[in-house]
């Protein structure tokens, strides 16, 4: 898609994020809740309140991991200046456990998000399937290109490693 010069002008100026006056952002001010207990007193009644409860159960049924839900909750609260990141990290296990309790109490099968971390050496099935799909899309095009190209002379014989033992037969 072609970019118009107007669109380029709409981008933020580098460093613009640091131009706000110190203290003008909520997280630059002293937090509202300074201890874990205070933060939990804020979270737990909200988790079981009518308006949040239903949407929590819906999210759980959708399979959203509880760890992700807890993390996004505390990140939002940090951004609102309710508590610091430290308090948020400390409160997260309790939030996760509370969410699990709510899920258990409602009889919902939820994803705790405690699955084994992804092994980087192992290629996932989805990645393999995606690569196969891309290859399939690319293959007919490559075949057409090959038909158009003149035949190349056969490549020279590859240098095979010579056996280096004393009794080895020389070729």
């Amino acid at each position, binding site marked *: 898609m072609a970019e118009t010069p107007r669109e380029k002008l709409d981008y933020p100026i580098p460093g613009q994020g640091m131009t706000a006056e110190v203290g003008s952002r909520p997280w630059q001010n002293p937090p509202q809740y300074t201890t874990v207990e205070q933060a939990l007193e804020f979270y737990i009644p909200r988790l079981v309140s009518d308006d949040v409860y239903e949407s929590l159960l819906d999210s759980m049924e959708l399979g959203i991991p509880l760890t992700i839900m807890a993390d996004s909750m505390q990140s939002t609260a940090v951004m609102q200046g309710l508590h610091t990141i430290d308090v948020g990290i400390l409160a997260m*296990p309790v939030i996760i456990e509370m969410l699990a309790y709510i899920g258990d109490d409602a009889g919902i099968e939820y994803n705790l998000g405690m699955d084994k971390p992804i092994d980087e050496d192992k290629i996932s099935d989805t990645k393999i399937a995606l690569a196969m799909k891309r290859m399939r899309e690319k293959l007919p095009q490559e075949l057409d290109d090959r038909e158009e190209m003149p035949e190349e002379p056969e490549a020279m014989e590859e240098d095979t490693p010579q056996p280096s033992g004393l009794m080895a037969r020389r070729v």
Partner: protein
Amino acid sequence: MDINPAYSAYTNLGITDTDMKDKPKKGMGLLSPMGMAKPKEELNEPRDRVRQYVARIRKARKQVTDGRNS
């Protein structure tokens, strides 16, 4: 490696089965073996308190699921 901080915070608490068990009530009489013993100082760091909270909720959660399964 991209790991959710909530995952790390939850798994690094290191809650054991002993955290979830009720402590036996100690006798307070003069002849009780525990009567004169000094009470152990409980750890009061935020992380220890969080561990206790999680253990309590987990215990309650277990009771909910056990009641359903039986």
